[in-house]
Each structure stands twice: as structure tokens, then as C-alpha cells.
């Protein structure tokens, strides 16, 4: 097995390149994916390789071009629509919820929507209240969608393929803080599934359940806890809808203590669903109340010290874990 040293950003780009090469039905469409080189430089170079037809710059019209992705998918294409960031996806939410997620059902099974929508998500770069949302857990409420949150280089590289093979709309959330993550990656890339959660670090003392941008936070906390001889089981959900309940409950049954780490605003975040599932299906396994470390319920402030205070930090996770371990 050979490996390459790469970044999360390059891994996503490589995945896009592979998809565009492999299937002529695939095309990439979104604001500034082409000439600008992608607003986070993810799609840099793809225009030159695949041309403006398949790497298609759109006007600022989120609703129209997301809906156009749906229509193109209905007509046999395999569009990858990029919404620059999750913050702007609200403008396309009607198309996502009322069309992409429902057409198969409303048509009694006639119309599949094999569409992939990618977007950057998350806070941490002092972008303030309108540019720091973490709404992937919120999107996971919608039946008919699949919600993926690649948190590792491997997943950044490999999740796109099964997402494109899936005949239903898939939303892929890339946390902005991950793009510069560097590391070694197998080449050719390993295959991954988009159905299961992964244990990123095994332990029997406490479950740290997380996904996406807070996986590094949870792993850092696990390191700290290990110095106290508390071995954390770090669950990376990977797919927020449908949830891999078996892996979650399996971890809880081993550890009997849980901290959910979620960058969404606490109330109504995905962490609530995780806690609820545990309370439903593993209540008697719990040796301590479920802890949640989430983002403070405030629009994101610009000032660094305030943003840091609002976001889940490794120390918060450690403190919560200590409370749970008692």
C-alpha cells in the first residue's frame, strides 16, 4: 500500500476529480467553483481539467441552482451542487425539503433524486453570526435526505463515491476548520460506506459521541482523559441521517457513560436525538446522566474570546466526562 501526504481540502478535490473522470453524468455546479477556484480553494484546477460545462459557475441564486440540480438528477445526470456555505443553504431550503426530499415519495416511488449537495459548515474562524452556522444536525431531521459529515482525510476522500452511487439526495457537510488538516492517505483510496459510524479510538470508560468538526476536539479530550487513565470510546457518527443506532448503543453498553459533543446550538441539536435514543434504548445501561457539550445558544460573536467561549472546547469535554465518571 502506498500513501500520499495530503490535506482534507486536497482529499475532497481528489474525490471530485475522480468522480468527474469516472462518470460523464457527474458535474459540479455552484458559486465560484470554476474561475475563482472555489471559495475555499477546494475545486481549484477542476475547471481547467473538465471545462466550464462540467465545472459550472452559477449566479447568486441558491434556490434556482439547487433546484436545477434536482431537475438534472431527475433527468439522469449526477450533479454535485456546491452551496458555498451552510449559511446560504437556507435560501435553498424549500428546494431541499419540499422537492429533493419528497419527490420520490410524492410520486409514489417513480422519481429518485440522485443529487449530492456539498457545503462548508461550522464556526471557529471569527466569521460572526451569519457565517458560522452548524446546521447539519438540524438538516438530519428531514426524512428522505442522507446527511454525511466526513471528519477524517479518509472520509473526505472516499465518501463522495458512495454518495454519488446513492440514488437519493445526499448532503455532504465539510467543516471549514478541517480543510487544512494534513496527514497520510492510502492511494488508491480505501472504500468506505456511508451507513455506519466509526470508533475512532476505543475505550471502556466513557463514550464521546461526535462527528465532523468536533471530532478533533473529542480526540483531544480523549488524550487528556487518558492521562488520568480514563479511556474514552470516541464514536464518529459519520452519517447523521440515517443514524447508526447500533454503534451508538454498543458503545454505551460498553462504557455506561456518555458525553455527546456537537457544534450545533444545544437545544434541538443532534445531541438531543442521541441523548433521546440512549434514554429510550439503553436507559438501564447508564451509570450517569448523558452529558452534552454543544455550542452556546447565541448567534456567533465575532470577537475571538467570545467565539471560543461559545464553541465546544476540549476542556469542556474533559470536564463533562469527569462529571460523568464521577
Amino acid at each position, binding site marked *: 500500500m502506498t500513501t500520499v501526504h495530503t490535506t482534507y481540502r486536497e482529499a475532497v478535490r481528489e474525490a471530485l476529480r475522480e468522480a468527474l473522470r469516472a462518470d460523464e453524468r457527474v*458535474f459540479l455546479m455552484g458559486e465560484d467553483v470554476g474561475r475563482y477556484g472555489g471559495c475555499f480553494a477546494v475545486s481549484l484546477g477542476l475547471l481547467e481539467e473538465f471545462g466550464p*460545462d462540467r465545472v459550472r459557475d*452559477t*449566479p447568486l*441564486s441558491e*434556490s*434556482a*441552482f*439547487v*433546484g*436545477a*440540480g*434536482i*431537475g*438534472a*438528477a*431527475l*433527468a*439522469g*445526470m449526477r*450533479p454535485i451542487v456546491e452551496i458555498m456555505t451552510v449559511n446560504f443553504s437556507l435560501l435553498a431550503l*424549500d*428546494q431541499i425539503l*419540499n*422537492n429533493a426530499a419528497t*419527490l*420520490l*415519495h*410524492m*410520486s*409514489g*416511488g*417513480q*422519481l*429518485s433524486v440522485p443529487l449530492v449537495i456539498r457545503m462548508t459548515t461550522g464556526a471557529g474562524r471569527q466569521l460572526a453570526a451569519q457565517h458560522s452556522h452548524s446546521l447539519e444536525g438540524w438538516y438530519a431531521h428531514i*426524512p*428522505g435526505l*442522507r446527511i454525511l459529515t466526513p471528519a477524517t482525510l479518509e472520509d473526505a476522500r472516499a465518501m463522495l463515491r458512495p454518495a454519488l452511487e*446513492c*440514488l*437519493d439526495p445526499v448532503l455532504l457537510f465539510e467543516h471549514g476548520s478541517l480543510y487544512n488538516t494534513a496527514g497520510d492517505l492510502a492511494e488508491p483510496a480505501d472504500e468506505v460506506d456511508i451507513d455506519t459510524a466509526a470508533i475512532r479510538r476505543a475505550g471502556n470508560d466513557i463514550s464521546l459521541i461526535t462527528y465532523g468538526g468536533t471530532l478533533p476536539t473529542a480526540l483531544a479530550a480523549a488524550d487528556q482523559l487518558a492521562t488520568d487513565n480514563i479511556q474514552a470510546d470516541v464514536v464518529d457518527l459519520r452519517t447523521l441521517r440515517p443514524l447508526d443506532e447500533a454503534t451508538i448503543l454498543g458503545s454505551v453498553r460498553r462504557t455506561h457513560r456518555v458525553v455527546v459533543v456537537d457544534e450545533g446550538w444545544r437545544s434541538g441539536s443532534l445531541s438531543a436525538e442521541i441523548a433521546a435514543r440512549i434514554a429510550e434504548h439503553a436507559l438501564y445501561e447508564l451509570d450517569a446522566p448523558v452529558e452534552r457539550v454543544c455550542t452556546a445558544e447565541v448567534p456567533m460573536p465575532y470577537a475571538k474570546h467570545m467565539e471560543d467561549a461559545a464553541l465546544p472546547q476540549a476542556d469542556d469535554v474533559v470536564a463533562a466526562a469527569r462529571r460523568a465518571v464521577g
Partner: protein
Amino acid sequence: MSRGSRALSARGKHRTELLRQMVRIRRFEERCVELYSAAEIRGFMHLYIGEEAVAAGLMQALSADDAVVSTYREHGHALARGVPMASVMAEMFGRSTGCSRGRGGSMHLFDVVRRFYGGNAIVGGGLPIAVGLALADVMRGRPQVTACLFGDGAVAEGEFHECLNLAALWALPVLFCCENNLYAMGTALAREHAATDLALRASSYGMTSWAVDGMDVEAVAAAGNRAVETMRASPGPCFLELRTYRFRAHSMYDAERYRGKAEVEQWKQHDPIDQLTTRMRDDGELTDKSLTTLEAEVDSELDEAVAEAKAGPLEPVEDLMRFVYTEQS
């Protein structure tokens, strides 16, 4: 085929077909009203009565490979497109034999074989889909056209603007068909739009655009044909404003406080079916007998559709969770 049509000229045959489609739609909906009162049909139901010329005129301009995107007021579009009446009626009844398996109802008729892409109940929500269908056709080098129907109300939505711009910018073969029936529910045209000449508005995006008498099925057919020809000859969207009127309430729950009876009566003078039958009679293309035959044919199609719909099974409740995700076959 009607027996009376045997001796007809090409124009006479064409007109007979247009008439047949309009009568099918009219009778279908009249029956639906009865069935709604009898609680066989439920949910929201939006009637097309008065507007039949638009569906009949436009659908004849399309080939089987073209695509259609429609609204919640789409019984007429579906029928004229060739979705079998029995499967539309079964859908109204919520039966699994319905064209959407009973999952959709009146507002969500679908027929993928006929490239009839629904049945969208969010005003303006179908336009982006039409743009995407046309984009796919262009990218795959197919010469199809996508017809997208929507109302005057939809023109106020932001999506209208985004989609007209996108289709014009990318020269996509979308035939935008605005059914301007002068009202969006209870809001009259001049209270929805600062600029009420909708065809002119559309032309400001740089696309060919014109207004058509939507009560005259032959005018609609001619416009539809011309638009489709134009689009097949050189790429790019077209916009048709079909000026029409709904004779009935917006939906089954509308007290029609916003318009006077006299206005409605006046428009009924332009009933598209009456207009065409008069013209055909004048031209010797329609007799009492051939009309009776046509009506009888439609009635029996309708009776059969209702009987089939009634006989159709309900989907088993155990299947509730199907069609949320695609079933791998």
C-alpha cells in the same frame, strides 16, 4: 377516435382533438366536484375549469420526449399530456393504482413514463426543476424542450427571477408558460405586480416572450408550436403568457369575496370550449351528432375511470415507510 371525424380535413381533425382534450378536462373536473362533495376525494383540490384551452393547446405542441413540470392546478395538464384518466382519478381517490400510488393526491400527479414531473404545490417551486431538466437535456445533447407551467402569482416569487435569469444565461430550452388567470388566490394581478404586463417582464431577461389569448385554444396551440419550433431551431428559453381565467373558486374552500359575479359571467362568455365548438360548427367541422358522440366517448372514459378508481386497492398500511429512500432492485 370519434367516428364523426372520418370525413374531416386536417384542420378539422386537429380541432376535434383540441376539443376532445378540453371536454375531457371539463367533464373530469365536474365529476371531481361531485366526488369531493361525496367525500371520495379530499385534501386541497384546485379546478382548471375555464382554463382548458391552455393545457390542450400547449400539450399538443410537445413530443413524447419533452418534459412537463406543473403546479397543484394540474388535472388538465396531466390529462392533456396523456396521463391516463383512470390513473389520475385513482390518485384523487388515494388508491395505489393512482398515478402517484395514492401518495400524492390532486396536487401531486406524476407520470415518469410521460415525463410528467408533477404536481408541485409550492408556488414557484417547479421552475428550478424545469431549469434542471432542460440543463440535463442540453448537457446530454438531447433536443428536448421542458415546458413549465405556473401562475401569475408565481411571477412574484424570487425563484421566478432566478430561474428566468439562469435559463436565459445558459440558453436552456425551457418553455415558461405563465397561466395568467388574473388572480393569485384572492389577490388581483395589479395588487401582486408593479408591472402587470408579464410577457414584457419576462422579455427583460432577454428571452423571446409574448402574450397569447389563453381562452382560444387554437391561438395557444399556434403559439406553443411556434415557441417549440423556435427553441428546437436555436437554443434558449421562451416565455408565453397565457391570458386566461378560472371560472371556479381558487380551491374548494374559497368564498370568492375578491371578485364579482358579473366579472366571472363576462369571462364565461369566452368559454374556450364554446368558442371552439362555435367556430367548428361555423366551419362545418362539428355537428350535433359528432359532438354528442364525442361527449359520450368522454363520458364513458370518465365512467370507466371512476369505476376503476373505486375498485382500486388502498396501499397496505405496512408499506407506510416505503418511498422515503429508493428501493434497491
